[in-house]
């Protein structure tokens, strides 16, 4: 996590006991720039990592990253804690913007080529490679291994590659209806394995 120490006060020592995104986002909503600085340090690695994973291109990733972080600042007032965690809110926004970029006209020309080169097994391999021993990464990896191949590929192609479900269907040679159920079944299995409650 870059620069984390820059904005840590004594109260933050001993992360993860430091302020979480859930603590900070409501402060950000009130225009607290210092809270935004701390929120940046808490979430920027996840936000940038996901964008980079979906877009691949470094320059585009940096651009979308800045847009997303600014959108978090601008729209923090609309965050409703009753509908989910701050992390989920931020990462949902992040994924949406990354996928928007993938689907925009600029990216269109590269898509065919990209799809042709794609090995569906790759997303999982890359997750596996990047596992650095952190608990949450080990857990994601372990839980992914409980999915059927089709569930895992459907979920990961959509989430990490930004493919629509018809695109996933054509890559995997499956009927559309099958892909959409695999996505749901796969995520439900992951949810249960990770003990996510929403």
């Amino acid at each position: 996590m870059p620069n984390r120490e820059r904005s840590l006060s004594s109260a933050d020592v001993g992360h993860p006991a430091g302020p979480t995104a859930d603590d900070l986002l409501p402060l950000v909503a009130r225009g607290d720039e210092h809270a935004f600085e701390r929120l940046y340090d808490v979430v920027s690695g996840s936000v940038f990592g996901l964008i980079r994973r979906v877009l691949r291109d470094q320059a585009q990733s940096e651009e979308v990253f800045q847009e997303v972080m600014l959108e978090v600042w601008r729209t923090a007032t609309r965050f409703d804690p009753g509908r989910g965690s701050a992390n989920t809110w931020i990462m949902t926004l992040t994924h949406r913007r990354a996928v928007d970029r993938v689907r925009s006209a600029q990216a269109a020309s590269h898509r065919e080529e990209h799809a042709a080169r794609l090995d569906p097994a790759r997303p999982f391999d890359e997750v596996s490679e990047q596992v650095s021993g952190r608990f949450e990464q080990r857990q994601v990896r372990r839980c992914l291994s409980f999915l059927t191949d089709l569930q895992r590929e459907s979920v990961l192609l959509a989430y990490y590659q930004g493919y629509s479900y018809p695109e996933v269907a054509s890559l995997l040679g499956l009927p559309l209806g099958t892909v959409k159920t695999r996505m749901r079944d796969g995520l439900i299995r992951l949810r249960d394995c990770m003990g996510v409650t929403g």
Partner: protein
Amino acid sequence: MRTTSVDLHTLTGAYAVNALSDTERTAFETHLARCESCATEVAELAATATRLGAAVDFPPPPHLRARVLAAAAETRQLSPHTPRLPRTRGWGRAGGLLAAACLVAVAFVAVQGTQSDRDQLAQLSSQYSRFSDLLSTPDARLVSASGPNGSTATAVVSVSRNELLFVSKDMPAPPADHVYQLWLIDADGPHSAGLLAPPSAPLVATGLSNARKVAITVEPQGGSQVPTGDALMEIALA
């Protein structure tokens, strides 16, 4: 042309990983606003997807930090949502749903831009509640297809209500003095379901009976009794 047919309630997974097209997403969001079980499941699956995102974390280049913070300092934040008073706008309750980026509302805006007559607005407004009711019926199914020039069409079909809602997006303007007409096609052949004027106007068709598909044709101004042109777009309902 590609047609997809799905049960709205099973779209939670595809929605949580952003795998739906724009039209499907907005239709599903309208459904979400009314369907408690889907809303709960989406919240859980979005939280699950968030774990996948966090698993690939990677630090951004350090110089972006100061840039983002400086940009934030110069950016005004959105005002928070406040409860909307009813009927503060011509749209009544449709106004509140516009904020939810509802597909149908988007189509209405397009219509509003071309029609100023108050009666028509009132009529559209009452049609609007039929749309949102239809979207929330338990057996509502979402069917979509792609058409010419990147246009898309989405139909929400409810057998129990014997109704179908049709909305198209990005349809090119019909030739001069012509209009798009929607047809319900059953074993007896095509039956007119109405005119799409303007092309993006949403349409509710009743009397689905045994219709197997809907189709759009280009017809002379005022529409035809039976289709005279080829189908530009067809959506299988089964």
